[in-house]
């Protein structure tokens, strides 16, 4: 038998080789190369000069006005806010989707998926039509009603960016929580209710604790997507909202300061990883508290 399986295993490598080759050559190597790039010496005439330095990181972290650290903090804060709003809006919807017995539930699922499957530029443009400061749907309608004279600033500021981010990343919160709730036995809630708990208490005491893994996954997805998003802040925030990804792309494409841009990107990536790790440590303690 072992002689019969050996040729299969030997040939099986051929199935994996193209994909593994691609991932090694064009993912692993480029990331290692990016680490090297962040330590290269900046140059004004070329994208980098010979030699290595830690000056790029010193420039990011040790800027006199703390400019870059301030933007890092604003980027992470926006990540917290967006994640929190997505959780508040997403949990009830996920509960509804998971427990829905109606024949429309496939359609509802498609509703939740639909924003995910349409390009981010298209979705942002939809919000531009609605929110635009002078001629946006909301402002022009309010003006026509005579409720306002000029306009309410809804775009080119943090409000517009937050609305766009919440809308675009909400499905990433809803889908993992829906999956988590679907795996919870509905009889648990029924038992709680038959013992006299109100509907809300039953959900809070049975569903919510058991859905924590889904909440964890959804929150991390939304947070990471938010702090690394480029299109939404640029289109809905204009020049008034500057975040780390915007800054990185500026350094790379406009200023051609590649080593510095690479260092900026890594500072963001490391800060993001630390936040996610802290969040996991804290919420895992919460899970142990529930089950233990």
């Amino acid at each position, binding site marked *: 038998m072992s002689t019969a399986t050996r040729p299969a*295993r030997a040939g099986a490598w051929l199935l994996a080789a193209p994909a593994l080759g691609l991932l090694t050559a064009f*993912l692993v190597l480029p990331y290692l190369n990016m680490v090297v790039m962040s330590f290269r010496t900046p140059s004004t005439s070329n994208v980098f000069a010979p030699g290595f330095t830690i000056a790029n990181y010193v420039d990011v972290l040790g800027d006199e006005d703390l400019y870059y650290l301030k933007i890092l903090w604003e980027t992470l804060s926006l990540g917290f806010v967006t994640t929190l709003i997505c959780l508040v809006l997403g949990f009830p919807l996920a509960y509804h989707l998971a427990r829905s017995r109606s024949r429309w539930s496939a359609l509802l699922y498609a509703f939740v998926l639909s924003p995910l499957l349409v390009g981010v530029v298209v979705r942002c443009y939809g919000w531009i039509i609605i929110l635009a400061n002078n001629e946006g749907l909301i402002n*022009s309608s309010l003006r026509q009603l005579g409720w306002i004279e000029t306009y309410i600033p809804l775009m080119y500021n943090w409000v517009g960016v937050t609305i766009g981010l919440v809308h675009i990343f909400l499905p990433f919160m809803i889908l993992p929580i829906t999956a988590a709730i679907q795996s919870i036995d509905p009889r648990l809630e029924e038992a709680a209710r038959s013992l006299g708990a109100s509907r809300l208490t039953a959900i809070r005491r049975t569903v919510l604790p058991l859905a924590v893994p889904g909440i964890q996954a959804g929150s991390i997805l939304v947070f990471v997507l938010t702090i690394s998003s480029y299109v939404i802040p640029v289109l809905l925030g204009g020049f008034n909202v500057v975040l780390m990804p915007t800054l990185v792309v500026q350094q790379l494409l406009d200023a051609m300061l590649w080593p510095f841009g690479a260092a900026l990107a890594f500072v963001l990536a490391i800060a993001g990883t630390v936040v996610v790790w802290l969040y996991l440590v804290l919420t895992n303690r919460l899970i142990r508290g529930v089950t233990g």
Partner: protein
Amino acid sequence: MRVRSRLGHAAYGGFVVLVYAFLLTPLVIVVVASFNSGNYLTFPPEGFSIRWYAKFFDSDAFMGSLFYSLQLAALCTLFATVLGTGIALYTVRFAGRLREQIRLLVLLPLLLPEILTAIALLFFYYNIEDVFDWAGTSVGFRNSFWGLLIGHVLVTLPFVFLSISAALHNFDRSLEEAARSLGADRYVTFRRITLPIIKPGIISGALLAFIISFDLFNISLLLKGIGTATLPIQLFDYVRWDFDPTAAAVSTVSILVTVAVLVIVQRLVGLQSLRF
């Protein structure tokens, strides 16, 4: 008590409806704006017109980028599906001790922020070009169709992989054993038994790869060639400075491409088989 609970239930229902509406509104608005005759969408709309579509179809920049995107997405789908099927078969069937590590490697493009991968590729294409220049040849991944294509394949590969892996996991191995015991060799067994059974997974993975590649932004922004732009990039450049509804017509066509693909998925394998 019962009144309070009924009120609470109504509030919950209203909240859920509002969130569904929030998810859909921008998409509906874009479609409505594209058929509105005015320069801006007002309430009530000014009248029906297809002039924004005429403007779109007359625009060489938009039409060129539409075909460029369709080409790119089609090729990306082809490569991602072939590579994804191979690696999924290997990981589920043959991988030994390294299975989890291989899974992680294939899913990495999904776990890493797309913009970081784009930056890494931008640097890498530049650096290897240097090396090859020094060796006296030119590879030309930088600012080229092929460089962009590799980026798209990387990002879509995990989706194909997940979809086909799932199909392989729900697979009754005894069917293959039956075929083998009836005298079919490995290749006939694969072609006649394995492939037809995992076909839904392959189709939904491939179509998902198409949609994702068609809408991909960050990779295309950093790796695009000079003078060539994908549709999302062209649209981005347009709506940055100009809000006129030509962009709405372009967006609606882009939504239609997605809807068409989804209809194909629903017809062939059912929407439920789309996995993220």
